[in-house]
């Protein structure tokens, strides 16, 4: 049939032609339209019939129909749905009411807004960990860099490098844990070991008389769980420090205490060092006072002479807490030359340790130290988030 004739007879001729050609039903030969093959099943047609009769239609074909504007999305149903509620009181503000604007013609039922919602528990940080994190942040703000060290230490780093004599009462096994497995570790390079040995035996080059006994390297190589964070400070000094330098560590420590309301199985120590030629005892007191006001919100502080085997002079600080009154807050001192010199540090080193567990107890309002490691999910769920 001639093209012009078909054009006359067929509505939407150009659309029909391009579809027929695309499907290979017709071809054009010298101005005539020739049927190549008869169409079989036409998906679009079936789908259109389906839409008309309210049957389900596949997504793909529906998209084609929508794209060809053969069908359009009708709002009539939602309008109908929404109409039902006109003038009535409704509970749920439905998408239909919002879309059609019908919400203007309904009354939204008031709720009992005084009623509490269902109990939910947010995911939270453990309160003690959160507290430690805040202390850590504060120390970083104050210019301290974090140190590290292993949980299992050699006695060398835990004691000997700190000028604690091998027969000193503080090294008694009732005061510290010993290990059954593994038993011995290795000592640092010989030059460090020799200097520490000399400091113990006769003072070496430290200007001290030393403890005056035969230092035993085998004892120093014994392994033990870290008993205090000062082990990290000793390692840091030996590794090398910036001058001026400020360092800190918050570390889990282990001692064989009988467990009660003030002694846990494990505890955390927060300690640090400040290295500079200009460091003196009055600056040590100044640093401690700053900690007491910054970290504990202390109103007043008092200093007491104290004793640590590795510091001289030594001091303890008590802080007056606005609610709890006087609490022992920090212990500190200037590292003994017998400790710093063998580790290769010439400048004075101020060393401080904070009673971090006690401070946490104050802050979290708990009286039993074991609660810091609470195993009660209800308690954790109830705990306030401290700011």
């Amino acid at each position, binding site marked *: 049939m001639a093209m012009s004739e078909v054009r006359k007879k067929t509505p939407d001729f150009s659309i029909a032609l391009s579809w027929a050609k695309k499907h290979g039903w017709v071809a054009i030969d010298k101005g005539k339209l020739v049927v190549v093959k008869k169409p079989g099943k036409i998906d679009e047609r079936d789908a259109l019939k389906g839409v008309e009769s309210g049957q389900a239609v596949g997504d793909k074909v529906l998209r084609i129909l929508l794209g060809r504007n053969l069908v359009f999305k009708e709002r009539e149903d939602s309008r109908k749905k929404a109409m039902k509620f006109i003038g009535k009181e409704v509970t749920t503000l439905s998408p239909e009411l919002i879309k059609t604007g019908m919400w203007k013609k309904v009354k939204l039922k008031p709720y009992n807004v005084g009623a509490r919602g269902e109990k939910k528990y947010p995911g939270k940080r453990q309160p003690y960990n959160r507290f430690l994190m805040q202390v850590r942040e504060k120390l970083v703000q104050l210019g301290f860099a974090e140190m590290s060290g292993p949980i299992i230490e*050699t006695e060398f780093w835990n004691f000997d490098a700190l000028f604690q004599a091998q027969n000193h009462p503080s090294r008694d096994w009732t005061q510290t844990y010993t290990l*059954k497995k593994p038993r011995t570790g290795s000592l640092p390079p010989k030059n460090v070991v020799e200097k520490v040995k000399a400091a113990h035996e006769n003072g070496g080059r430290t200007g001290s*008389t030393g403890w005056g006994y035969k230092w035993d390297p085998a004892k120093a190589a014994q392994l033990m769980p870290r008993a205090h964070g000062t082990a990290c400070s000793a390692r840091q000094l030996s590794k090398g420090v910036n001058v001026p330098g400020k360092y800190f560590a918050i570390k889990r420590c282990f001692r064989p205490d009988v467990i009660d309301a003030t002694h846990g199985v494990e505890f955390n120590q927060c300690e640090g060092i400040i290295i500079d030629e200009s460091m003196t005892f009055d600056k040590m007191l100044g640093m401690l006072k700053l900690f007491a006001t910054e970290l504990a919100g202390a109103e007043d502080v008092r200093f007491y002479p104290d004793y640590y085997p590795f510091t001289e002079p030594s001091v303890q600080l008590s802080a007056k807490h606005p609610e709890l009154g006087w609490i022992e807050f920090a212990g500190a001192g200037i590292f003994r030359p017998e400790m710093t010199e063998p580790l290769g540090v010439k400048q004075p080193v101020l060393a401080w340790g904070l009673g971090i567990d006690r401070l946490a107890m104050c802050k979290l309002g708990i009286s039993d130290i074991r609660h810091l490691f609470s195993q009660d999910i209800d308690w954790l769920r109830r705990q306030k988030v401290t700011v």
Partner: protein
Amino acid sequence: MPTIEVNYEDLQMLVGEHVPLDVLQDEGIMYAKGEVDEIEGEVLKLDMKDTNRPDHWSVEGVARELQGRYGHKKGVPTYDVKPSGLVVKVDRKLKCIRPYTVCAVVKNINISHEVLSQMIQLQEKVSMTFGRNRKEVAIGVYDLHKIKGPIEFTSVKPGGIRFVPLEFEKPMTPAEILKKHPKGLEHGHLLSGLKEYPIFIDSSGEVLSLPPIINSNHTGKVSYSTKDVFIECSGFDMKFLLPALNTIVAALADRGGEIRSVRVEYHDKVRHTPDMSPKKSSISVDYVNKVSGLKLSRGKICELLEEARYDAKPKGKSIGLLYPAYRQDIMHPRDVVEDIIISYGYNRIKPVAPKLHTIGSETEIEKFSSSVAEVMAGLGFQETLSYILTNKASLFGKMNLPEGDVAEIENIVSSNWSVFRNWLIPSNLEFLSKNKHREYPQQIFEVGDVVILEQKKETKTSDGRRMSASVCGLNIGYEYMASMLDALFSAFGMEYELVAAKHPTFIPGRAAEIRFSGKPVGIIGEIHPAVLNRWEIENPVVSFEIDLRRIMV
């Protein structure tokens, strides 16, 4: 840190001045590095902080410090010593047993209740804390008139002699004392392995004591009627023995006793003890000010030292010092500086905040741990915190695993805390087992350390930073935790793989190894009901554990 009891009246009597209680508490006791712990009527309980200052551990020693500030005695305390004529012969057999003794006689003491109780307290604290629980220093005090010199310090076979030990009625051999006497049971280990035991005997064959265990009931008992005493300290090292003896002798001399020396004869030398003559030292003014930060004049430093019971004489830019014979704690000029600052008063020093410009930082692993915890909390998990110490049953048996190697404590306090954990999921399960009757579902996580044995390391171990999360409750299963794990990795923009794994802790077919860059970094799985039974957990649990150091980029 020893705790001692002193009578407040007695203390003031010894100081020679009234010291108000509040002044003593707030200031006075600090001069002896002590703290008033408790007050019960007239009795003050004091915490004495310096384990190297045994001279502070009696009322006489505390009074000595206070005299310098509130009383009229300053400068180094002087003690007059005359010979007693008494001889102690030390047997060379003792070389490998208990080689040394130092002795003294103190005469004309008026032994009141306070004198006696302070003497016993001092003897106990010195041998306990300073003398390393009698190992380094054992002290005996005897009624001089019950002893006939010369005294012999020798050794006997465990069954070789009999005497009546203190507070007992029948004579016993040393071997019997070690088995039956409370002090023998307490300190007997100090003689273990020895073929002969040390013994003090007088010339009439009367036993004085079996050091370091017990005195004889006859000679070694001091009562209110005793006027003159013989004192001996025995041990292995003069560094401990001399200051211990001097401390006790000084305390008795402060009570009016007169010190007499004893001639101690070793096979190769003779030593007259006690030697109470002060020791010499010196300190530079510059060093004092460099350490303290104070600007003290030479004169002021001398004044402070005199109050701290030193003799101080200016010598150019330095100060020549004399300090008491009972002090063995001065090893370095630094020790003298502390005494000067204590004398000045810690609370009189103006604290100066140091101004140093340094940059603060956290370690990478702490930063990463915090970020992981933040994401887990965001996913609705409650963080928990538990001990690193645990027990083998929790790590292995209860987890359906054969027993493996972990770091173990020797001197355990409780078998519950005897080893270091080597993985973290057991801590989650222990927590859940303690919360069976709490509201479900329970979603928890912990970021914590584990200890892994590693031969090559300096400490034969390495610390691992792990994160484990668990969910416990009905209708929450593997898929839920897999999506939590996915959320965690996605939050850090990290790819990972799950590869089916066999692990006895988990239900077969419901466990997978977590891999990051092709390497195993953790495990996820639904806990085996046999494991739940052992923990007595009644709801299903799905857990995962990740080694944070291995995924930290």
